[in-house]
Each structure stands twice: as structure tokens, then as C-alpha cells.
């Protein structure tokens, strides 16, 4: 990672044992047959994760993947690590238990838009605010796949699906805005088909100590094909993707003669948010420079609002926010450790003696 100019920080995987053994993607591939629909975006993400994990250099037995229910939640079965395919929406709770119990584990959650934002919405926001050390990969295909095509909490209003023949009435969630509202410390968005960007975001997310939320735009060719065409098609993507790079001015669109994108983000005095302007029309110093490390999430939130809530024609992609805050699990372990630092505590005999003292405490009397 590039030097971000921050004080020396604890990395997300710092307490996880490493290995010198050379690992390859194959080491992380289980013997189970992968069973997603042909062309599903999940394949690309699985491949990217399998080939990225060796980069971490962690011992395989110290990696745990937890998922909920949905197409993407089959993910753990295909990775040769420890894993649990749990129940609908609850993966963050199980991961919280694992991450709090064991500092020496690298904990990952795989979830989808229905799993994380509908049935599990409560757990997601509370995990984010607690900042438990884990990385959450939120596969957003804007549809329910496993239950065969109902609209999801990220589907655009008016979406015609099996359960909404006259169009859905719900206003969708923007997962990034939601995470920022919950004061998540690491929030990023990437795309299933952009292996390079996806991998760089995974690396940053794994390195972050705390809850990293990574929204992955994932195409479901069966029930919501083309949902992300605008940001994937070579013809349109320059105008559709607003790339966020910490410390860089936010520019996009077809390049001008000087190589800068034709469009730029500037502060919008009227709304207090940000807006898109023609780069040529503004002074270079007025163009917004992306600051993912700003402790105040307001600007990151303003940028997240540039995501279309209807059909996706424009969307900021990259790391919105990456700040340091103490993690719940570190603090919980510290409390336990500080309460147990008495001489010879780890000694089982000592614990028994203290148990005898505990239950034998209070106002007691003896019958002879």
C-alpha cells in the first residue's frame, strides 16, 4: 500500500499468524463443485478472492469466512478455509462472536443486498458502528436471486418483478450511504468484473483494522441482467464511474487535451453537497480532492449521493472512507485481559481457587 501519511496503525491482520510457505489460489480452493448460474458475477469475485488470499501470507487455518443466505452466501463452501454458511441476515453476528473470541483469526463475511440490507439490516449497522475487526463483502445485484427474482432493498423504485407486477413501491437503500450513516470506518465500492480494482480494494479492506464494508456491484444475468451495464460498457464507463482515489482530484469522463477527465466534482454551495461540473469551467483548485481519511464523514456521504437510485448511470467507485477508530473486539479483549492480569492467572489451578472464593463469598456461615 502507498504511504498514506497516517501514524503507524495496527493492521487488520496484524495478530493473525503468517506463513512462509508459498500459497497459490489453488490452496484456497475447496473440493466442492461451484454451483452458480453460468455467467454469474459471483464467479469473478470468487476467483479474485482465491487469487488474492495468498497475497495476505496468512496461515490458511486462521482464515474464517462466514455467510448468510442467498446465492453469494454459498461462497464459504468453495474456499478451503474455516467457514460457516449460517442463516439469513445473521452472518455479522456470528462473525462478531468469532472476531471477539479470537484475535488470531482473519474474519470475512460474504453477504448480499437482501441478506445484509433487508433481513440483516439491523446487524449490519450495529456491526459497523461497533467496528468489529472483519471485512464484509456485500454482493449487490439489486435483486433476490436465490428465491427467484423478487425486488430487493437496492432495486430501483418501479422495478417490475415476480412480486411486483405493477412495479415496486420501495425507495432503495444506497449501501454506501447507509454504512457512512452508521459511521463505518472503512467503506468502499467496487465492481465484480474489474479484477484489478476489486483486488486493490480487498487488500485495503483486509489491512484495515475494524469493520470494512466493501460493496461489490455484481451482475445477476438470470434475474437482473445488465443492471450495471453503464459502468461496465467501454462506451459509457468513462462517464459512469466516478473514481475515488485518496489525495487525488475527483475527475472523470472522456479525457480533455491535458489528460484530465472532462467532468469534475466541486462543492455545491447551494445544497452543501457536491456536484458534477465541466472540468474546463472551473479553476483547478476548486476541484474536490478526495480525502478518505477525513474523520468527518459528511463529504464522503455527499459523494455517495451521486449514485443513481434508479437505473445506474453514474456511480462513485473506490474507497469512500478509511479512518481509524478503536475496534470493539480489541477493546473487549483488553477488558478481559486487564481483569485477568493477576499473577499466574492462566494457571487453571488459580482459576479454580478464585472460583471457590467467588462462590464462597458474600455473607456466609458455617454449620458444624
Amino acid at each position, binding site marked *: 500500500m502507498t504511504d498514506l501519511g497516517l501514524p503507524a496503525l495496527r493492521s487488520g491482520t496484524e495478530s493473525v499468524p503468517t506463513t512462509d510457505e508459498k500459497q497459490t489460489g489453488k490452496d484456497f480452493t475447496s473440493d466442492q463443485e461451484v454451483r452458480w448460474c453460468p455467467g454469474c458475477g459471483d464467479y469473478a469475485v470468487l476467483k479474485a478472492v482465491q487469487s488474492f488470499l495468498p497475497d495476505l501470507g496468512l496461515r490458511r487455518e486462521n482464515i474464517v469466512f462466514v455467510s448468510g443466505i442467498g446465492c453469494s452466501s454459498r461462497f464459504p463452501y468453495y474456499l478451503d478455509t474455516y467457514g460457516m454458511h449460517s442463516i439469513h441476515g445473521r452472518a455479522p*453476528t456470528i462473525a462478531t462472536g468469532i472476531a471477539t473470541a479470537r484475535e488470531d483469526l482473519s474474519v470475512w463475511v460474504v453477504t448480499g443486498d437482501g441478506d445484509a440490507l433487508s433481513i440483516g439490516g439491523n446487524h449490519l449497522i450495529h456491526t459497523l458502528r461497533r467496528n468489529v475487526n472483519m471485512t464484509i463483502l456485500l454482493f449487490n445485484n439489486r435483486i433476490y436471486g436465490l428465491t427467484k427474482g423478487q425486488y430487493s432493498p437496492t432495486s430501483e423504485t418501479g422495478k417490475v418483478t415476480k412480486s411486483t407486477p405493477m412495479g415496486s413501491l420501495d425507495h432503495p437503500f444506497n449501501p454506501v450511504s447507509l454504512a457512512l450513516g452508521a459511521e463505518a470506518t472503512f467503506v468502499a465500492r467496487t465492481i465484480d468484473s474489474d479484477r484489478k480494482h476489486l483486488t486493490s480494494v480487498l487488500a485495503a479492506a483486509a489491512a484495515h483494522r475494524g469493520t470494512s464494508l466493501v460493496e461489490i456491484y455484481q451482475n445477476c444475468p438470470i434475474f437482473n441482467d445488465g443492471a450495471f451495464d453503464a459502468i461496465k460498457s467501454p462506451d459509457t464507463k468513462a462517464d459512469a464511474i466516478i473514481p475515488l482515489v485518496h489525495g487525488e482530484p475527483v475527475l472523470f469522463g472522456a479525457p480533455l487535451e491535458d489528460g484530465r477527465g472532462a467532468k469534475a466534482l466541486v462543492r455545491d454551495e447551494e445544497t452543501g453537497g457536491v456536484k458534477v461540473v465541466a472540468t474546463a469551467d472551473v479553476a483547478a483548485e476548486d476541484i474536490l480532492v478526495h480525502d478518505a481519511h477525513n474523520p468527518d464523514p459528511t463529504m464522503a456521504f455527499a459523494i455517495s449521493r451521486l449514485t443513481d437510485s434508479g437505473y445506474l448511470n453514474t456511480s462513485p467507485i473506490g474507497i469512500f472512507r478509511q479512518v481509524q477508530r478503536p475496534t470493539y473486539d480489541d477493546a473487549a479483549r483488553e477488558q478481559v485481559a486487564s481483569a485477568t492480569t493477576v499473577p499466574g492467572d492462566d494457571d487453571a489451578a488459580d482459576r479454580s481457587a478464585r472460583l471457590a472464593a467467588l462462590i464462597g463469598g458474600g455473607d456466609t456461615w458455617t454449620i458444624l
Partner: protein
Amino acid sequence: MAAGRARAPTAYALTPRGAHPTEAVRHDPCHTTGVEVVPQGRKARSALDRRLSSLLVVAPEKEVKQLDRVIIRFAGDSGDGMQLTGDRFTQETAAFGNDLVTLPNFPAEIRAPQGTLPGVSSFQVHFADHDILTAGDAPDVLVAMNPAALRANLGDLPKGATIIVDTHDFTARNLTKAGYTENPLDGDTLAEYALHTVDLTGMTIEAVKEFGLSRKDASRAKNMFALGLLSWMYGRPTETTNAFLAKRFAKVPDIRDANVAAFKAGWNFGETTEAFVVRYEIKPAKMAPGHYRNITGNLALSYGLIAGGVQSGLSVFLGSYPITPASDILHELSKHKGFGVTTFQAEDEIAGVGAAIGASFAGQLGVTTTSGPGVALKSEAVGLAVMTELPLVVVDVQRGGPSTGLPTKTEQADLMQAMFGRNGEAPVPIVAPQSPGDCFAAAVEAVRIAVTYRTPVMLLSDGYLANGSEPWRIPGLDELPTIDPDFATEKNQGSGDDAEFWPYLRDEATLARPWAIPGTPGLEHRIGGLEKGDGHGNISYDPANHDFMVRTRQAKVDRIADSLPPLEVDDPTGDAKVLVLGWGSTYGPIGAGVRRVRKAGYHVAQAHLRHLNPFPNDLGEVLKRYDKVLVPEMNLGQLSLLLRAKYLVDVVGYNEVRGLPLKAAVLADVIGGLVADAEGIDVDLTPASIQQESHDD
């Protein structure tokens, strides 16, 4: 009690013998009579020591009557500190060496409208010179701090009971709030009781004058005045209360001193007033030798969970969401991080159990604590623990239901929920404690089963056990089982380079699967809610495999019975034709009811189930030995239903769902009826037929 009745709600003079009020206050209740008090901190004393010291503190001019048992109920507004008063009286009584059982009863609202019937909070303590089983059916003494407390509790009093009333709050406004049109202290409505009208509040304010508190703060010490008076009346040792007050209010010396002064003033008032001419003595009970403390069910259960962690060498991880009446377990465990206990207050019930399951997967002892509504929310996750076969202890402190029901009242109507409240065939072992102190052993047993058999276990306590208390013989650690987590460390299938780890290859004896925790090299595996293939544990939709796995999960739970001792049946002469079978907190009232019937000369057997799933192996045989089986429960017959279904035995239910413990007298009548039926005899349980003056409830 032969005290004269004061008709008008006026205060007794604080100093009938003309002493200056503050002089009386300065007297130490124990030192006024020149008695040497056992110093605080010297805890182990023989019962005889304590009996002697209590005898000596009696003022010579007061008559002393011997009693074998007393039931006192402290009642007041929920802001009056009645729970604390009852608790302190209980500690004094425990320290004195009586056997005792308590029954707190408080409203669901934290502060219901002051002075109203719904706002009444009470604490009943039953203590005796012999072993007792219940908090008593009807109080002998009621302390009522306001009109509402009098009105709410009067119906429970037998004729002749003593009533001590704080007259201070008997104003027109408060009388109306309590629904009285006339002051019951005037007129003859209470003529059948021994009524003592005392301006407790007024005397308290007078007694604490020197501390310069506001009138409101001063009057708040009235509960300590009442405690002092009752402590005098029943010869309770005072050092535990003085020590408690010193500690509790250490940071607010004025309040501390006022409470201590009020407590002493209450004692001295009893000593000096002519209104109370009799003191009572209840000798210490003969209890089995051992080291004792008084303990509530929630505290004992918390200690049991900690002990389960120590005995298994596992760190306890509690994932919980606050809910009445289980929250105290979360509070207690959060104080014991020194035992490696992690407490996680989750965003909801589901997150609590989810985190506990995660911790178990990671190699800790996952525990979640809740009440009935919380169990409903956790059901799906408990099913996941059944499927993934991970250790998990689910504590359900049952309360009145359905829905929000009666949050602060007791019931045992979650048995079916614990047994069957999940989708699919999802057997879960069930363990139930029978008394507050027994919550400790029951919790250790739940941990043993969960860890040994890799399964979620339901621990069914209830609101009565949770808040009720009793003297508890503190067990030695050598009495506790050693629990072996037996983590898997090796591949278990095939050999050499082809060796694999199969997460569902079972232990032949217990049918438990191996517990391989993350961080163990070579044993990487995936588990989840989908059906597992036998042995290898990969997803399997094979019909025969599903049938086999469903039966195997059931067989594993059934097999727990092989590790249980035979059911203990109490049938002293072996002549009984009627068996009374219970579970959970009905143990006390059932035992007391059985004693009454036996005292009247009849035969009845008693057995109590600690394990509701699986049942002990010999239960069917025990049931068939008796002509009639009575099953009293605080539900509409849930255990009855299970027994009838499993053993085809025509058990007779006795069922009440009043939010209160069953009454021994009522049960005795029911048992008597069955004995009459079964033996073809007349059964007479009227007091005359029972040789003793009082019942050993």
C-alpha cells in the same frame, strides 16, 4: 400478638420513657443491652453462638415467644425500597441461621404511578427453625407502607395476622388513589387483624433530623426504620445491615448515617414502645453441615456458568440482550471478566445468540440468556446450532406469556417452546433447576451436556427462581464434574497423504461430532445450516442421508440419558399409590404439599425432573409403579402432555397460571383427593388431623 390497637393514625411518641429523641437514636441497638456483638468479618460462627447472642439482646421487660416459623411480607410503593428492605431482612435471617425462602413481587413498570395499586412492590420472606420449601402461602405479618400496599395485600392475610401500617401516607389523596372511600384504619374493617398503626415516616424524619437532609431524602430512610423495628421484633442480628449500609452509601456519608440512624431508631422504637410487648424467637434451623450463603437463582445461575467455564477450561462468551427477568445474569457475568468471561450486549436477541454461536465455533463456550419472547426470536439460530452441532447454552428465565405477558411474574409455560419451538426435527436437551440455589448445579449440568454432546441446551429457570432466594450450601469444587472439550487436532479419515478431516464423523459412545476450531492446521472445514452428508459433512440433498441425519441428531440427544443417574423417588415407606411428579420451581410447593399429606398420616411419593429432554431412562418404569400420577405445573399441562405422549400414562394435571408460585395448601388438597381415590379411603387434611401446630412448608 397482644398489642393494643391505636385507632387514630397518629404517631406513637418516639420516646415513651421521656428520653430525648436523639439519645435514643444514638444507642446502638446491640449495645444498649450490653451484649457483645460478634465482630464483622468473623463469618463462621456456630448456630449455637448465634442463638445465644440473639437471646441475650432481648430486653428484660418484653415477653419472648417461641415460634417455629414466620412469614413476613414487606409491601410499599415501588419507590419505597421494599425489595431492599426484604433483602436486608433476609440477609440478617440467613446470618442468624434460620432456613428461609423468599418471594419478591414487583410491578413491571419501573415507577408505576405513585400510591396506586399497580405500583405496589412487595417482598415476602418465610423463615423457620427447620427446613422449609416455599415462601409460604399466607403472610403472618404484613408491613404496609401506604394505603395501596394495604389494599393490595390484605386479601392474602389469614385472620389474626399482624399488620404494621405506616400511617403517614394515609391521607385523603392517597386513600383515593388506592381506591379507599374511607380510611380503613378508622372503623372496624380491620378488627380481625392485630393492627399496629405507626407513623414510621414521621419518626424517621425525626430520627435523622441531625443530618440536615431534605424532608424528602429524610423520609426515604423509612424503610430502614421499618427494618429496624422488624429486626428487633424477631431478634435479627444487625451487623450485616450496618455493614451493608456503610458500604452502599460510602460515598454519601449523610445518607449513610441517616439510614443507619433510622435503622437503629426502628430497633429502639420496638424496644421502648409499649405498643409492641412481645418479641419472637425462631431458633436457628438444623441444616446439613457445610458452608452456607443466601443466594438468588439468577446469581447462582451466573456462578454456575462461570463454574462451567472453569471446569471445562473454556472461556465463557455471553451474547445477550436485556430482558426481564434474565438481565441480572448479564449484569453479573459482566463483572467476572477476570474468569475470561466476555459479555456482549447485542443489538437484539438474535445477534446475542448469533455471536454466542460464533464464539462456540471459535472454541469458546457460547451462552445466551433471555426469557420466553427472546427464545422465540432466537429459535432459528438455535436450529443452526442443532444443525452445526456446536455447544451452546440457552438460558430461558421464564415469565408469564404469551407475547409480552407478565414480565415480572413467574410461569413455566415455555417447556413446549424449548422442546419443539424450532422448524424441522430439532431436538434440544432441556435442563431445569428446582430451587434458587439449584440454579448453580443446573447451569453446570447444562454446560456439561452442551460441551460433551456438541449441542445447544435449554436451561429453563423462571421468574420465581430468578429473584427468589434461599440458603445455599456452597459446593466444594471437587463436587463439580470435569468437562472435557476434547478439541479435534488430527485428521480422522483415511491415512497418509489421503487423510482428511470429516467434521461429522461421530464418537461411538456419545454420537458427538469432533469440534475442530479455527487455527487448527489441516482441519479446515465448512459447516452451515444446510443438511450435511453423514461423516464428511458436505452439503447433501440425498433423501436417505437426510432421514439418517434427522434420526442421528435425535439419537444423540436421546443418548444423553445414558449419562444420567436414575430418577430419585421419595417414597419413604414404599406404600404410596400416588406419585407427584414435577419440574422446575414447583419443587418447593409440591414438597410442602406432600409433607402436609404425610403428616396427616397418608402415603404419597414425590419425584422431580431435572432433565426434561431426554427424560431419565427409568422414568417410564417409575410412572408405571403408581396408580395415580399427579403433575402440578404453572402452565396448562405441558409436561403432562409429554408424559402422556411418550409413556401412554394417564397422568393427572394440576395447573395454575396466576404468575405466582403454586400454594402448598392447595396442592395438599389435590394430592389428598387423589390419595382418597387411589386407596379408596377418606382423607382428612384439616389442621386437627395434622399433629403439628404448623405446617413445614
